[in-house]
């Protein structure tokens, strides 16, 4: 605090209380640009719609998703009516409530998968980009190895084998174990794009003068990575993650459609699987879950698109 006296007296007390209001940072700025982005806002609305359905829907719909009582009065594959707005499916379930209860599953799959993928991807990409040299080389080859694995075959095989192995063990009682296995596997094979992006961002940011400046003021290596480099890479990471959520939901639908889904979980892919054979008789039972998958995946893709534009500094006006 040993500056010269004039500077000390020049700021009598005013410096002591910094104002609370913060002007726009990257996030607020990004949001402002995002708001004017039509595709992005459309994506956000679709995602919000799905989230709203997942949160509020279960309290609104009349039928339990496992309620087959429609069989008694309406019968299976009955057309949409006032009682069953989207009709009933092959097994006499109310299609609307199956769709509504499928929304949380879809979101959980999307978010869970990307959580797993992000943790692995950011760690691998972070180490790779920051350490450089031989470590980088090895980790990137490892990443490429994961990129060329035929993901679906492995997922199908593991899900089936794991399903058999757990029978009779305490693991069997874990709810949604099958679904969690799928999520975990999707994440396990979904991280390479994130790792590559994080690495690229780190290589770029590492060269920035502010990182050098941070080093020159004695900042620890760990703090440089956590406080200066990673936060600057976050906007790009958010974009790939948003894109990945849509992809993960589609992938889970595919696994379920092939009949490898969790029998206890209500998933849109499974609805398709159960009903596609009756496509001609009861098209509503197949079209509705298809549309739900479409809307959700489209929503996340458009959202990612909008985010990419909003965080791209070159588009700044």
């Amino acid at each position: 605090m040993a500056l010269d006296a004039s500077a000390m007296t020049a700021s009598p007390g005013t410096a002591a209380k910094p104002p609370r209001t913060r002007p726009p940072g990257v996030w607020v700025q990004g949001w402002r640009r995002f708001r004017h982005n039509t595709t992005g806002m459309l994506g956000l609305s679709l995602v919000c719609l799905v989230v709203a359905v997942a949160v509020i829907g279960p309290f609104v719909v009349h039928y339990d998703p496992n309620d087959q009582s429609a069989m008694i009065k309406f019968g299976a594959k009955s057309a949409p009516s006032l009682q069953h707005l989207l009709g009933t499916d092959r097994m006499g379930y109310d299609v609307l409530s199956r769709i509504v209860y499928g929304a949380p599953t879809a979101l959980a799959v999307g978010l869970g998968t990307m959580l797993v993928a992000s943790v692995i991807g950011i760690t691998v990409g972070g180490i790779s980009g920051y350490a450089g040299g031989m470590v980088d080389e090895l980790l990137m080859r490892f990443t490429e190895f994961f990129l060329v694995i035929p993901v679906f075959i492995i997922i199908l095989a593991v899900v089936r084998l794991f399903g058999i192995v757990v029978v009779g063990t305490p693991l069997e009682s874990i709810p949604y174990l099958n679904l969690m296995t799928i999520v975990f596997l999707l994440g396990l094979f979904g991280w390479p794009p994130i790792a590559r992006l994080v690495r690229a961002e780190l290589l770029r940011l590492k060269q920035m003068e502010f990182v050098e400046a941070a080093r020159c003021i004695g900042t620890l290596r760990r703090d440089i990575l956590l406080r200066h480099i990673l936060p600057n890479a976050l906007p790009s990471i958010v974009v790939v993650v948003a894109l990945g959520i849509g992809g993960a939901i589609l992938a889970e639908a595919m696994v379920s459609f092939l009949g490898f889904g969790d029998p206890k979980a209500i998933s849109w892919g499974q609805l398709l699987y159960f009903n596609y054979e009756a496509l001609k008789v009861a098209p509503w039972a197949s079209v509705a879950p298809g549309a739900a998958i479409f809307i959700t995946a489209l929503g996340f893709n458009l959202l990612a698109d909008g985010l990419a534009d909003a965080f791209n500094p070159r588009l700044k006006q």
Partner: protein
Amino acid sequence: MLSTPASSNSPLIGAAAPALLLRVSGLAVHFFTGDGVVRAVDGVDYQVRQKETLGLVGESGSGKTVSSLALLRLVPRPARVVSGRIAFEGEDLLAKSERQMQAVRGKRIAMIFQNPAYSLNPIYSIGDQLGQILRWHDKIGRKESLARVAELLRLVGITDPVSRLTQFPHELSGGMKQRVCIARALLCNPALVLADEPTTNLDVTIQAQILDLLDELKGRLGTSMLLVTHDMGVVARMANRVTVMYAGRICETGEVRTIFRDPQHPYTRALLESMPRIDQSYSGPVKPRLAAIAGRPPNLIAPPSGCRFHTRCPEAVPDCQRLLPEMAEISPGHAVSCLRRGSPGRETVGAVA
């Protein structure tokens, strides 16, 4: 090598010689690249005294930036400090542990960068990123640190410093950002500020303001400065003494006055002649041409034998190809490394593979 006792005793103009703050001797930084060893800095000596500004001048690639980064022990990979001593405040910086160096960086030696636009982190507000440094170095609280930051922002001539604390770098102009960077460098009251071309990326009017500011602050705070630049004009204005570098070696060192009035090394002369002078007319019937230095800077993987400047030197004699000149004092405080000025030479043919 420079005969140091004489030079450190030589008087500054109108004052007794202040104590030595920094003495770099025999510093060598080599880049170990796939193509070979680049001798970017190859046996360099210079001193910075208390409250003095030393101008480190040279063209790009002469090793001036690397030799200043070496002071913080932050030479970029694949470079390494291969030899030398850096005595700063009586301690050898090259002998310190990485942990001890962290306490030097930013606290005792601070740095101002070339490009203010990129040297501030875009995601932190000014108050946050400057306060962070203080909290880390001085272990003080958030409130206290922000007060100190505001005080420094005022010192570097930023109006309404308190409201600037919450602003982000992109909301400031280039000159303003450089002021913030200067404030950042001065936060912990460092003994030495390294300014690496602090005005190169600013427009001319702002350059003048920033130079004035640096000059004023240096006088007020009593900080020493190592000014790395290729701009002789900036040196003439800011520095007390000048060290001229060429291809990783020192050519000449001395008081600014001496160097500008009586340059001895052919490279220094050529450098000064390549600069327009205010006391010379460039219009009229006879238009004098600015002299350029012929040739290109040498490849430092295989530097020329003998004196590194001999390939471009107008005064070169056969001996220059053979002997590497060493620094020798030709008058108090003025040292030159040139065989034609009586510097001792060291046989190099065969010594450098």
